[in-house]
């Protein structure tokens, strides 16, 4: 699955760019995620529990920063996770590009996502739904983090990221359709930045 997402954050690029690489800050604001540094060195290990109505998936995996281009402000991550129970897996290469736009920041995320196992085989529609809603959450969370508004998870999503509920707070029905989205592996990447 190739997914492209673009969104805008009401903050200047000088503030946004470093945040994109500041793992703990972004990860901390997302319920359902737990992470810790990998003793081996330059990556993080963690778990991510996702919920879409009655459907729940828990992945555990690793993520690392593959490369950073300071000049162009492009960061590329590789994330992979395995289902905690079951044989499914997800892997993603995520390339994020930020650019200045009149005091705002435009963020372009290009994701190459591969999901193996039941989630891909049963109802590909399901993955698209999860992906779409997840990105909406990320955009919201990032914006709040940057503008200083503390992010409060909706009551239904304390222990797991309730993707559907979060989607409700996204930018409206049309936007939901417009955002192609990420999936679990991608969000995992957002959380588990590599150490630079």
């Amino acid at each position, binding site marked *: *699955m190739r997914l492209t997402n673009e969104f805008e954050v009401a903050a200047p690029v000088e503030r946004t760019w470093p945040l994109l690489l500041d793992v703990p800050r972004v990860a901390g604001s997302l319920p359902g995620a737990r992470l810790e540094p990998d003793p081996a060195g330059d990556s993080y290990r963690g778990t991510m529990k996702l919920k879409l109505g009655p459907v729940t998936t828990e992945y555990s995996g690793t993520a690392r920063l593959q490369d950073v281009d300071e000049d162009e402000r492009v960061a590329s991550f590789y994330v992979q996770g395995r289902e905690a*129970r*079951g*044989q*499914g*897996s997800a*892997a993603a290469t995520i390339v994020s590009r930020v650019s200045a736009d009149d005091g705002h920041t435009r963020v372009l995320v290009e994701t190459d996502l*591969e*999901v*193996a*196992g*039941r989630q*891909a*085989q*049963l*109802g*590909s529609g399901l993955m698209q739904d999860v992906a779409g809603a997840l990105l909406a959450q990320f955009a919201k969370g990032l914006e709040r983090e940057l503008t200083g508004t503390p992010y409060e998870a909706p009551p239904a999503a304390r222990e797991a990221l309730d993707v559907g509920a979060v989607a409700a707070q996204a930018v409206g029905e049309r936007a939901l359709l417009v955002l192609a989205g990420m999936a679990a592996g991608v969000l995992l990447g957002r959380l588990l930045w590599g150490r630079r």
Partner: protein
Amino acid sequence: MRSPHAHARIGAVRAPREAPGLVAVLTSDELDGRARPLPIQLPHRAEGAAEPHPLLATGEVRYAGQPVAAVLAETRPLAEDAAELVEVEYEPLEPVVDARASEHELMRWEGGGGDIDAAFAAADLVVRGSYALPRLVAAPMETRGAIASYDGERDLLTFWCSAQDTHRQLAGLIHVLERPAESIRVLVPDVGGAFGSKGVLAPEGGVVAVAAMVLGRPVKWAEDRLENFLAAYQGRGVEADVELALTGEGRMLGIRAHIYADLGGYLMPTTAIPPHTTAMLMCGCYDISSADVRVSGRRTNKVPTGPYRGAGRPEAAYFVERVVDDAARELGVDPVELRRRNLISEFPHRTPLGWTYDSGDYELCLDEAVRLVEPEREAGDELLSGTGVAMYVERSGGLAESADVALEPDGRILIRSSTSPHGQGHDTTFAQIAAEGLGVELDDVALQFGDSAAVPSGAGTFASRSVAMGGSAVALAVEKLRNECARVAARLLEVPEEDLSWGPAGFSAGGRTLPLRAIAAAGSALKASARFESDLVFASGAYAAVVEIEPATGRLRVRRIAAVDDAGTLVNPLLAEGQVIGGVAQGLGECLTEEATYDEHGQPTSASFADYSLLTAAEMPPVATAFVESPSPLNPLGAKGIGEAGAIGTPAAVANAVADALGGRGVDPPFTEEKLREVLT
């Protein structure tokens, strides 16, 4: 426990040390030295790679759903719980999903005859087309399964399975386990359908057999529907570039075809057979004197393909009939007329590809089909309609079958047949043959099949061969038995055999009649056996369809279908018609909704009935059937095969009707709304 990846190397496989109800976990390590991969059957003159399907993956997996480990537990739910805990180190590799792009050939075949270059040089018109049929899921009502039990003292493995016949399961086990035939007994009870997908031993079946022997306990495997979608071999999955050379008057001079088959990750025993069959039938029903056909079976990271109702013949009918319609349009000739100018009319007829068609009346079939379908073509704003016809010729029969027939003491007849029905109604058909031959009631005939220890040997139930071969064996055995009975009757009536006459009431001479019951009661055990062997016989037919398309939505509706089949002598017309209608339904499914889809990573994306849509009775259009009978000279019944005809003729006829409605623009199935709207806008 199956691979989630379409292509990966396997490192360590770590089984949970304990889990509720867990008995054992088997991987390829445990099978090493105990079992070999499945065998490979190559068609005549085909070249094949030595890449058989292993029972459990060894070092690498080549399709999502491939069995990696067998998790054995006290119950199925507990086995599934434990299977989730098995950890496998996968190193994902780049999957190949497009057959044409694959550089790896699993199978290759080339054939032809006549002077193809001269034919194309002399042609006034060369028509070229590329056509494709996607992969399909067989979707039998009952999924696959097996139970194995091993008696160590007698060194006997007993194997019950949901399969098409006992013989090929037995042959598979003999090969995989390297054991002699006498040490294995295979039982195939009445089975809930197969459509070709249960012909050969499944890898999981082999694992079950080994597990029973290793564990010393009976082992049962009943796959669930998801596993059936992932790992049962699929059908079709072929595309072809076809070139037809014709004169300006529409005489076909030669045909060239390059066929690409998407064979999947391994060569299962019968994977190579359907593409070869397609190639051999590329002259269709037409008197074409030269042909040149190549088949390239490519390896992809998908589950392997194999025979599925039609097994190569629907593909041939599709490729040939589509190019013939394209030729008609280019020549400006009526497609029915173009066919008439080229139909084979003298039999036996040997094609340049090598097969000899035994009998047929192609023109009569074509005329009947056109008459029955009531052609229609209209191009309105709200609705487009079109008509299409398609001829087919198909091979069936061949090899050999056997039957033992016995007269029981109570006057009933017991038939032991080497074929096994799985929905075809052999009980009735074979009983009819025996009842007629021996003058008994249908209810007085019993059929026994499906036990390798009890039934005579044969090839099996596939390729619509059971009536032609199995039925003929029964007919011969019945005749022999009747002769035995005549001998006894002559003795009892104290007359010479020549003076006996045979009638519905029994044997008569000099005013006295002895019914079969009396002969049976006389005490001697009367029985007879026969083995029947023959070359292939060739059934044929013409199908026609009228369709309508709604331009606003792209929705296709098949208004009616005419199915005219020539299966030689029909033993039971009612059963034959049932087979045709069933085949038409599957052929229609292929046209309207069915397609086994994969994403770019080789993940199957239609792995449940929610995504893989089967037609319901509500979608069936009226189907007019008719039968032409050109008896085959090659067997005593004159029978050919009818089981797959509906699936063979329907897709080609509907495709031609769709192209007709679209004003000559052809589309490959399934004819989804998106596809049709795209053509129209």
